[in-house]
């Protein structure tokens, strides 16, 4: 009778525990990292039938065993890997999107096109001040387009750098957490609530880690894990089974970021597996760096081409043209340890060439010192300070010892329009030529400036008169028109003839007696030769095509990599969703199933209670007989 009571009681206890587990499952139906638990029930061992333990005939009830987590390590691992792959593309896509927005948002292609089109308008109205002003404005817009884009890309690069640092900080926090969970697990009896809770947090940490970097997990005793980098065995160990985690960091290796273990002591470089958000970030960083290089090269090419072009021509006052763009600006970097709040302003004089190493500005007790980094020159005073064309205006609020780095930067950021008036724009050719109206031949004289030319002496205006010509070869006399002096007799054989500072060709067939004039373009000329030459700058093709097509190519490269990343990201997301669903099918909570379970367990509970009631009835009956 007491056996039956005990059996009933064990059943009530076991199903109460099972109901509690089900209740827990329902309560945690929406907990992210919760793994469904179930209670394993086993029949209690019968007594051995020894003198001390009586063998029972009808069993001795049920006992509640371990609480089992419904987890499948293979499916969990597959879900982790898939999540890491997806995170890689998601991170890359996000930053490539920002890169694409920066490049399209700068409207650099429109600005460059506007500049060259303004050149065409300038050629149509070479003496119009309005056309010249508009052209200078377009040049300013093109330069500032480059400068804004350069600054944007630099900011983007810095932002990705911060994101990379944040990712490694998170990775280190997660691995440290995992090492601690390992310690706890080693000390905890498996199968208990505490151990299961620890395993849930372990899996959550592993999932979070796998989103950031590809890992291989090896499970040891009591659920402790060894986490190594990459896929398969042999990767660098991040979390050992016993001991503290190894920190990781990202450092710059000659322009390309690389992953290192233990960055603070004896850093070891390791290959970063191509999965996880860290990989995506570093790939995006490389993309941004490549875009920056491309834009900087393009800016330099643009500045050199346009400055060369401007110097080939002659301005409205008859003087040789001056460069349109300055290519250097000063970047100000406040010292990391600055205690004060002072801002400083730096201006670079037009045409000044700052020292390549840069400068340091230091606040002393009483005044300021601006010095070249190499120490070869310095100035001190209360400010403003001037050195090498740099003028530093200081503001109040600096503390003693505050310092600033002033570095010259070129490339896209450094591009700016020089202060040039409309009159100083070189629209005309430096030299013009004309054929005498009485010429019988069809020859034309083509003259162009050439600073290095050192042929015959003689200053324009010059008259070139053909004295002999037969069979493609002839001679011509060159006379100064002003003085009438014969300065040279040159051979006409189709090759270029050099004067001083210019050279000319005679194309076509002249007839003896034909003459040509070669004149320096005077002030107020309506010649548009140099403005027309801008079309050649626009269409000249270097490596990567013309200026505009190389810009298109850069943008198309970014766009196609982004499109590819998005495509791969969509696939990776589908795989991630599938594998997560497969994992959740095993380890997730389905409340309908729990409802059914609850009904089942309730019935069992009620039945066991009924067993106790029956035992009590039987006992009552028995005791009633004795009365």
């Amino acid at each position, binding site marked *: 009778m007491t056996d039956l009571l005990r059996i009933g009681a064990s059943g009530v206890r076991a199903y109460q525990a099972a109901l509690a587990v089900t209740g827990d499952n329902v309560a945690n139906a*929406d907990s992210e990292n919760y793994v469904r638990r179930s209670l394993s029930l086993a029949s209690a061992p019968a007594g051995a039938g020894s003198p001390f333990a009586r063998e029972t005939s009808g069993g001795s009830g049920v006992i509640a065993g371990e609480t089992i987590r419904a987890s499948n390590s293979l499916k969990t691992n597959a879900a982790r890997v898939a999540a890491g792959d997806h995170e890689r593309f998601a991170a890359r896509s996000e930053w490539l999107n920002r890169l694409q927005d920066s490049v399209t948002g700068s409207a650099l292609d429109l600005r460059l096109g506007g500049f060259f089109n303004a050149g065409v308008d300038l050629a149509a109205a070479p003496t119009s001040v309005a056309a010249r002003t508009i052209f200078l404005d377009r040049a300013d817009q093109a330069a500032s387009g480059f400068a804004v884009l350069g600054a944007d890309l630099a900011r983007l690069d810095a932002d990705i750098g911060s994101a990379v640092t944040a990712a490694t900080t998170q990775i280190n926090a997660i691995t440290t957490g995992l090492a601690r969970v390992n310690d706890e697990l080693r000390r905890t009896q498996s199968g208990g609530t505490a151990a299961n809770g620890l395993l849930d947090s372990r899996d959550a940490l592993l999932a979070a880690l796998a989103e950031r970097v590809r890992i291989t997990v090896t499970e040891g005793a009591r659920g402790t894990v060894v986490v190594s980098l990459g896929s398969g065995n042999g990767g660098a160990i991040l979390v050992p089974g016993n001991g503290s985690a190894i920190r990781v960091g990202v450092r710059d290796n000659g322009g390309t970021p690389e992953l290192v273990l233990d960055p603070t002591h004896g850093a070891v470089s390791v290959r970063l597996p191509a999965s996880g958000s860290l990989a995506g970030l570093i790939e995006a960083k490389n993309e941004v760096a490549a875009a920056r290089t491309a834009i900087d090269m393009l800016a330099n090419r643009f500045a050199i081409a346009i400055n060369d072009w401007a110097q080939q021509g002659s301005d409205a006052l008859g003087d040789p043209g001056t460069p349109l763009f300055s290519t250097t600006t000063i970047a100000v970097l406040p010292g990391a340890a600055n205690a004060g709040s002072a801002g400083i302003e730096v201006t670079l004089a037009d045409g000044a060439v700052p020292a390549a190493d840069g400068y340091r500005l230091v606040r002393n007790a009483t005044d300021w010192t601006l010095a070249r980094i190499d120490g070869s020159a310095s100035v001190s005073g209360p400010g403003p300070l001037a050195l090498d064309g740099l003028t530093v205006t200081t503001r109040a609020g600096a503390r003693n010892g505050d310092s600033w780095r002033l570095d010259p930067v070129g490339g896209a950021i450094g591009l700016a329009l020089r202060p040039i008036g409309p009159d100083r724009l070189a629209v005309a050719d430096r030299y013009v030529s004309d054929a005498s109206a009485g010429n019988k031949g069809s020859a034309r004289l083509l003259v162009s400036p050439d600073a290095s030319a050192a042929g015959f002496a003689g200053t324009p205006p010059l008259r070139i008169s053909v004295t002999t010509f037969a069979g493609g070869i002839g001679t011509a006399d060159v006379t100064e028109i002003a003085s009438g002096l014969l300065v040279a007799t040159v051979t006409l054989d189709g090759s270029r003839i050099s004067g001083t500072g210019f050279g000319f060709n005679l194309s076509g067939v002249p007839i003896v007696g034909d003459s040509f004039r070669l004149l320096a373009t005077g002030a107020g000329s309506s010649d548009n030769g140099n403005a027309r030459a801008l079309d050649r700058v626009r269409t000249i093709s270097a490596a990567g095509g013309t200026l505009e097509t190389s810009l298109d190519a850069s943008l198309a490269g970014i766009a196609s990599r982004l499109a590819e990343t998005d495509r791969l990201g969509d696939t990776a997301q589908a795989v991630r969703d599938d594998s997560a669903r497969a994992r959740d099918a095993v380890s997730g909570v389905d409340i309908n199933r729990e409802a059914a379970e609850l009904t089942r367990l309730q019935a069992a509970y009620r039945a066991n209670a009924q067993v106790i009631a029956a035992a009590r009835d039987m006992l009552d009956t028995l005791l009633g007989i004795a009365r």
Partner: protein
Amino acid sequence: MTAINTRAAHAAAVARLTSLNRAADMAQEQIATGKRLTAPADDPISFTRAAVLRRADTAATATQRGIDAASRRLNATDTALAGISEIVQRARELALQGSNGTLSASDRGVLATEVSELLAAATGLADTRGSDGERLFGGAAGAGPAYAADADGVLQWQGAGRAPAVVIDGANVASGIEGPDAFGLTTTTVAGVPPVTTVTSRDLFATLSALVSALAEPDDGRRNTAMTTALSEIDGHITRLGTARATAGARLGRLDSETERIARSSLANQTDLTKLESLDLTEGIARLQRLLTVVRAAQASFVQTSNLSLWDQLR
């Protein structure tokens, strides 16, 4: 059959709804902007092609502005040349009248006065300015007058170089006629001992001056010689002016045909751009409608299925 997990099922349903909403939003944006491509990554190849086409289009517009300016200049040049041609025709009539031996000296004086007036008018027309104040017949030297008297009082061309050209697809088309090409050039040679300056050719203005002097010449023989020379020179000038006008006309014609070509290629560019970038509105609206229907159905079925629960049956 895999088991269904409440949380994952919810999350998946929400994700599907979100992606449907995003697709509908994108379709709406495409309809609102009328463009199929909203960012380069939507279709990098088409985007690059569209950028090239758009650039070609704006460049063609700029070229067209250049052509318009050149046309204006050539038209003004032609008008000035037409005026001068009339003047020269009149001068020829006067020269023919003056050649008549029966005229009295005072009659010839009247004729000489009119020729002087004609000379002044021609000189004025030769200094015609363009819209930016540049001298149409001055070549590239735009600031000063195209013709000015030298120390001997002889009118000389002050220009230099050639009139500004307009670049059309890499080829230069001159937008003007230089003075000497229209009016000839005064040239002299110096020979003999002591040096004697002989005029070998006279420009239009020198010819008209010579005609004035010839009409005033009292000696019949010398006058006849001078009148004959002047007449033949005037005939030469008329031919030269005709050639210059023909040249200006040919250049204008070239610019006109370039204008037509640019308009045609611009139309082709626009057609290509539309093909590359633009949304087929009918198809776009139909797609949006389809998406919205799917979104509504998905929302309704989500609400229905998430209402299904065994818990409702537990009493």
